[in-house]
């Protein structure tokens, strides 16, 4: 067996590569507890933009005075609309796109919340819990998709956002919007199954879709997935969003707190003793 210099360096390089990139960064379909996340796949090519899901959502969450303006301008979700459908002028004509909470696998709002009111459930939905929230609105600051909305005109305000119909899911049913969609543009299921289904659709009809599933890696992976015939920025989605999770942005700071809390007092005490002694000596002289 002969190992010359070149093969040796090649092997070295390969080993180093394997060590550094050995653990591939893949968005997980599972929560920390090991249960599999649920999600919804939204196929823009099937959606006709009928706003039916908005009515179903309002129905499911008990908004009585619900209304969709005629000839609507660009709309955002707000404290009365947990989901809205907008129409965008794209390179392939006017296309609808539904906006709602993305239900990130590792949500920024959950990490931001200091009372654990924002909570990623093991089933997949990110929910808001009334009895815990103190209304600081830090979740609104942190959310990269600008989803949590606040009832500014209430004396006991709530944070309003899509909860993926958690009450229906826990009874084994499926979310109202996905259940009622007449075009089957919304598909509810296990996140891993949905990704497989999305890949199959892209594979079967490569001309119909662009080769990307929005939400597979965005913000570290989201439970809500988008398929589109046009680049996602044409549908008003942020395509510059980072592919690692948002809580990872503060991880460094949070893990430095305990060492500083423990070590800095010791350092300060040391300086105090040092300066005390030197000033005593000066006084003696």
């Amino acid at each position, binding site marked *: 067996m002969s190992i010359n210099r070149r093969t040796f360096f090649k092997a070295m390089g390969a080993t180093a590569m394997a060590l550094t990139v050995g653990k591939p960064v893949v968005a997980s379909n599972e929560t920390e507890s090991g249960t599999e996340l649920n999600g919804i796949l939204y196929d823009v090519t099937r959606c006709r933009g009928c706003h039916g899901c908005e009515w179903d959502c309002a129905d499911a969450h008990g908004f009585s005075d619900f209304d969709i303006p005629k000839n609507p301008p660009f709309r955002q979700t707000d404290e009365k609309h947990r989901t809205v459908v907008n129409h965008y002028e794209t390179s392939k004509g006017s296309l609808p796109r539904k906006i709602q909470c993305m239900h990130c696998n590792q949500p920024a709002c959950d990490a931001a919340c200091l*009372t654990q009111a924002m909570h990623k459930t093991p089933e997949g939905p990110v929910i808001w819990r009334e009895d815990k929230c103190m209304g600081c609105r830090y979740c609104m600051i942190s959310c990269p998709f600008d989803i949590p909305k606040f009832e500014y005109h209430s004396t006991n305000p709530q944070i309003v956002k899509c909860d993926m119909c958690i009450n229906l899911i826990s009874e084994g049913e499926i979310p109202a919007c996905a259940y009622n969609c007449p075009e089957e543009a919304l598909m509810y299921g296990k996140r891993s199954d949905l990704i497989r289904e999305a890949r199959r659709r892209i594979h079967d009809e490569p001309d119909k879709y662009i080769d990307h599933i929005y939400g597979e890696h965005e913000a570290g992976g989201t439970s809500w997935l988008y398929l589109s015939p046009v680049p996602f920025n044409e549908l008003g989605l942020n395509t510059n969003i980072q592919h690692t999770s948002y809580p990872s942005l503060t991880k460094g*700071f949070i893990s430095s707190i305990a060492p500083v809390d423990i070590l800095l007092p010791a350092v300060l005490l040391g300086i105090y003793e040092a300066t005390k002694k030197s000033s005593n000596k000066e006084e003696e002289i």
Partner: protein
Amino acid sequence: MNSNTQTIGMRQKESIFSFLISELKPKGKIFTPFNIISFPVIVVGLVIIFLRFKNGIGSVTNLTQDVPWGLWIGFDVVTGVAFAGGAYVLVFMVNILNLKQYRPILRITVLNGFLAYLFYSAALLLDLGRPLNVINVVIGNNFGVSSVLFLVGWHFLLYMLALLIEFSPAIAEWLNARKLHRFLTGIAMGAVIFGITLSVLHQSGIGALFLMAKDKIHPLWYNSYLPLLFVVSSVFAGISMVIFEGSISHKVFSGQLNENDQQAHHNILTGLSKICALGMFAYLTLLVLVFVHEQNYAYINSPMGYWFLLEVLGFVVLPMLMFFMAYRRQNVLLIRIAAVLTLLGIMLNRMNISIICYRWDAAERYIPSWQEFTVTLTIIFIEIWVLRWIVRRMPVLQRLPQWVGGGH
């Protein structure tokens, strides 16, 4: 001085309660220009606060769904905490580095810091939608330990306690409580050491709050070094506040000081201006480093870029040079001007990050309502009233009572 010794003499005869009641009466003139301006503002402010709890936050503020933190957080808390940074810097200089020449301004600075924190937490409670649930954070049934805000909140709370302990000997001296005084001075050193640690962490923590708003803050202001930039800038922001506030209180309470004190105060100011200049130099170096590292050149030639240049050149570089010059020429007036410029710069920086350049691309811009400004002024005015009440009664600026050992 004379009246002070008289009250001490009288205090031994009367009971503590009648003493406290007599101290509640106002000292000094009632119809001063400050009172005439501040009293109506406070009355209007209290009415607005009442309306806020009656009709909801939206009834008195212009907050939007895009910009959920407005003036009450961006100015009262984010900027205010930086301004209150003087307390931990001076405590570090006097109690840890043993720089005795700064001791005369220590108590007033610690008192200022404590009151500032007390009133900022009040402002924070006004801004909370469900303020009663704040108890969840304290009693611990719902600890969100992965939250930066949780850690900031706790460091904030504990630091207030540390500041109160650091100031408490003055209260004991006022009440003539000698045993209590001995105990409080005994535990003060612990409060000092933990107070500085807690400060470093919550000052940087306020910067860390905005780390997750990565796509929302303009790239010229957002960077991963925000916590470091916040803690470094809090050093000279705090000292500038000490200079600014000291210059005013030495005029207002000049009756409590003699000529030697005034001369000593000038020496203190020149010393502080040197520290400010060095702190600002370090901050500027960091800013340049971040600017180069994040490759932000492309943004400079735009309206936001000019706004950024104004902040850095006009309110960091300029006051830094003024502090340097003022230190070399011993020019107290120049120091005061530089301090005011620095404070404006810090205000600009914190407001840029939390309000002005936060969602700078939003369709609906947030401009604070007059009610928000009035409530902010109300909080500042009440704080000044309380400060004045304390300074007129307790040994903050004035000489210590005779029974207290050691120099002031």
